[in-house]
């Protein structure tokens, strides 16, 4: 079991480092952007609220959602391990398959949590630079993203293991879409959690009202998934 956790951590270490660097980079960009707004001709640009909000809230959104992004790229790194015939090592060793699944959960949870902690450290700096107060309400953004990340991980891994790569990608992309739209909506509006439910409801309405569009989306997702090839499976 420890061996498996170690393996997954080794595989995702670069994703974690890249996650840290990206969050720090985005924060730096936000600082330069916001501080630049206060000098020279940029003052005029600040009056263009739409552009200001786009960059400012976009950076906040990215920093908050980085946990999810890094968790998903980490999960892909672990998946790559299976494409590397890892299953042959696993199934020929005295390791129970459920331990492998459990270790993936632990590592995905760790990555999501580490990234969210880092995000919650970086986020106040952006708010402070933007002369906005940072309180529990703002912290909740990271918290919701962390929870969304956990939910995605919780549902994604079994889907990934049980279903074929194509089905897994379709389900996961849909879920990711729901969460990203919900988070974005929540960040862009002030109505908080209600917006998330409205957005999810809107998403389902969209599926209901635009069935053909969804079918096209599913087909495109299936084809893109087939690029990654059929996963080697036990009980073939």
């Amino acid at each position: 079991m420890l061996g498996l956790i170690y393996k997954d951590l080794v595989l995702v270490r670069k994703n974690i480092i890249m996650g840290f660097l990206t969050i720090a980079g985005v924060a730096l960009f936000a600082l330069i952007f916001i501080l630049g707004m206060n000098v020279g001709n940029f003052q005029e640009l600040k009056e263009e609220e739409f552009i200001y909000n786009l960059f400012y809230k976009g950076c906040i959104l990215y920093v908050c959602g980085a946990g999810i992004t890094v968790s998903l790229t980490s999960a892909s790194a672990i998946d790559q391990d299976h494409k590397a015939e890892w299953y042959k090592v696993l199934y020929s060793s005295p390791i129970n398959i459920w331990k492998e699944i459990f270790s993936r959960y632990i590592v995905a949870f760790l990555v999501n949590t580490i990234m969210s902690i880092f995000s919650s450290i970086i986020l106040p700096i952006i708010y402070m630079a933007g002369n906005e107060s940072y309180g529990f309400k703002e912290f909740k953004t990271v918290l919701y993203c962390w929870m969304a990340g956990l939910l995605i991980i919780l549902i994604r891994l079994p889907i990934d293991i049980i279903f074929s790569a194509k089905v897994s990608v379709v389900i996961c992309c849909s879920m990711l879409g729901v969460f990203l739209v919900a988070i974005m909506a929540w960040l862009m509006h002030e109505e908080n959690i209600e917006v998330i439910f409205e957005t999810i409801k809107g998403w389902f309405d969209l599926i209901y009202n635009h069935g053909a569009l969804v079918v096209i989306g599913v087909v495109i997702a299936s084809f893109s998934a087939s690029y990654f090839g059929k996963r080697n499976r036990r009980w073939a």
Partner: protein
Amino acid sequence: MSLDYSVENAIEIKNLNKSYKGFSLKDVSFNVPSGQVTGFIGQNGAGKSTTIKSILNMLKTDGGDIKVFGADNLKNEFDIKENVGVVFDDIGFHPNLKVKHIDKILKGMYKNWDSKVFFEYLEKLGLPTKKKVGDYSRGMQMKLQIATALSHHAKLLIMDEPTGGLDPIVRNEILDIFMEFIQDSEHTVFLSSHIITDLERIADNIVFIHKGKILLSEDKDTIAERHGILKCSKEQFATVDDEDVIGYRKSSFGIEALVGDQEKCKTKYKGMLCEKTSLEEIMLFYVNNTNNGEN
């Protein structure tokens, strides 16, 4: 039931069946004697990998009994795997891993993992420890797999085409390691290959599979002594009993026929030449005979 290392056969397979679309293992039965090297030969797609995966419970079989060290391979799966070293034709480790990572991963997976032995093997096999697995050559990757299979004090080595695609020098090195492994007669090796010269060199027993059926399962020397090539003219061949012939081919000199009882044929067909033959020739005759029989 615990494992019994003193059993006569390290592996016993009875009536193993497994069907895929277009291929099936049909009542496969054979034994792998303890303390010996057993070679598993057959063409590509004959059923070697399916049989090996069935032994390791990597496939759901359609029926049959498999015992490893006297214990059922399904009921005692984890005990068995603790004592089995496995080598496949492809390395299973992620290309980004280094040997230090593999050591730590496997230390957490096998109770008896021995890092000291592992690094000794790496040194002995000349494997660089700083490189990533993905940067290893195929020969190096196979050597790494063998080092990992030997580093948890396994009693049985099961290998699927361990020497496939390797140059003769590396193959030779690897075969030497297997020979060394079975020196104390406490260890057993079961390896599949379609490189028959390798098996002629190291195997004590041969199991020959063709199109999912076991055609031969015997001591290598007995196979070599028993079989022979009967060389004769077409007219002489017409007098040979069908039951004595396993397969035949026409040559510029007449007919060459594989016979299952060399001594008997030498006495029975005195005017004809009956010679010893190689394992490769025997396999070719069996395969051609089966193919012709189906055509």
